[in-house]
């Protein structure tokens, strides 16, 4: 169980927004993580280095925060590995079919006032909430 943390949520969200504006202002690209990472497979050679460095930046940013402010939360333990594998596969395939994830459709798409992204966001939010309801309250996995 986690508690409501409105201030850190708003500040963290604003930083994500700033990153999205920066990537568009500088590189002319949408900060959609599934698109950036997934594009490493299909795009041409010259298009890959900025994608790798954006991904590396995610690791440096989160890792750096962990070094400066360690243990802001407790790591989950004992979660079934098979569920993680299934989750990863579904997220990988689903974001490619639907053309985006929480960042590309959710943050950037809604900020562009795209109906297409709004529909995608509402769909994945509902699907995720229903899944959690079934897994947690139906099968009793997790807290």
């Amino acid at each position: 169980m986690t508690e409501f943390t409105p201030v850190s949520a708003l500040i963290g969200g604003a930083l994500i927004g700033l990153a999205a504006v920066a990537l568009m202002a500088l590189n002319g690209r949408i900060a959609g993580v599934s698109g950036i990472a997934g594009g490493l497979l299909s795009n041409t050679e010259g298009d890959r280095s900025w994608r790798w460095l954006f991904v590396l930046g995610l690791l440096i940013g989160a890792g750096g925060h962990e070094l400066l402010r360690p243990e802001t939360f407790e790591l989950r333990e004992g979660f079934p590995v098979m569920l993680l594998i299934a989750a990863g596969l579904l997220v990988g395939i689903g974001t490619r079919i639907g053309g985006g994830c929480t960042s590309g459709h959710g943050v950037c798409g809604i900020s562009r006032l795209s109906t297409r992204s709004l529909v995608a966001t509402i769909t994945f939010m509902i699907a995720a909430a229903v899944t959690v309801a079934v897994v947690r309250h139906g099968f009793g996995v997790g807290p």
Partner: protein
Amino acid sequence: MKSITALIAGILFGVGLAVSQMINPLKVLGFLDVLGHWDPSLALVMVGAIAVTLPGFALLRRREKPLVADRFQWPTRTDIDGRLVLGAAVFGIGWGLGGFCPGPGIAAISLGWHEPLVFTLSMVAGFIAWHLYERGMAASTDG
């Protein structure tokens, strides 16, 4: 230059994911768990992000080109088809199963913890599976 600016945007994004605790799957599942002990924090992450990105993108729309690239690559698709909804639903199920979406899944690897690594490797397997499937489909239409 494009790589350095992408790295900077990635770092900002990663810090935002850590500050907002999007990299904590229990926090994410707490938000998606509307039937349980609901934690609305992540709604405020979206609010914080869109509050910056929406006006930021509106200002950038008036500019002709980004600072270090040739052109703005704004998404152009507006169609809402079955693929969009199916993909978003599959992604949502995966997100609800594990509590990781692509950005946080990658960023949390920096905490040196097995869960995001297993998730991300499975997600990449999903990307590859979809990439091969699409290439196979394209080859069969060409032939």
